């Protein structure tokens, strides 16, 4: 998967997850906390973890 596509998919997934969390939580002032979640930074974390997992399972195992 190209790097830019991985960024788009992970960014979209993290934003959608926090937005869903904001939808289901009540009251709305509490749900609003998740509107300021560090989603871009978290997408970076998930990406680095995914890259490491991919490296360990596909290259080191071979």
């Amino acid at each position: 998967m190209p790097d830019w596509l991985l960024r788009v998919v992970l960014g979209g997934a993290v934003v959608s997850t926090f937005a869903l969390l904001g939808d289901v939580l009540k009251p709305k002032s509490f749900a609003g906390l998740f509107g300021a979640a560090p989603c871009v930074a978290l997408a970076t974390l998930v990406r680095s973890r995914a890259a490491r997992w991919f490296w360990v399972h596909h290259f080191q195992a071979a």
Partner: protein
Amino acid sequence: MKVAVNIAAVYRSKWYEHIIRFAFGGAIRLVAGIIANHYGPEIGGLFLAFPAIFPATATLLEKHESQKEPGKLRARQVAGIDAAGASMGSVGLIVFAILIWQGLSRYPLSGVLSLATIAWLLVAMMAWWTRKILVKILRFTT
């Protein structure tokens, strides 16, 4: 009001609204990456704190509320309450950024990001509880 979970709220959003959020989040992540690659980490870092969730959520929230009860005022009030929550979440984001700034040169990325995320959540929740208690005290005294 106590914190509660209402799973039925997920079904209020239409499928294309979820796709819009996903595309918006993906686009922001891509743009942040391009800016960081082109202009360096100092400028790119500004976009790590981009409010990617809030604009998508606030517009949909306002739309859903105006469908429930016609009239713009109530819908905007609810979106405003959501914004108040986001401002308290931003207090947590400051702590998040300080931990990343101080910790990244000494510790591994995944460890620092995980710790900073937990700190963000705790500080944001503490800010929310503090505001709630202050509002109660102010109401009681006036």
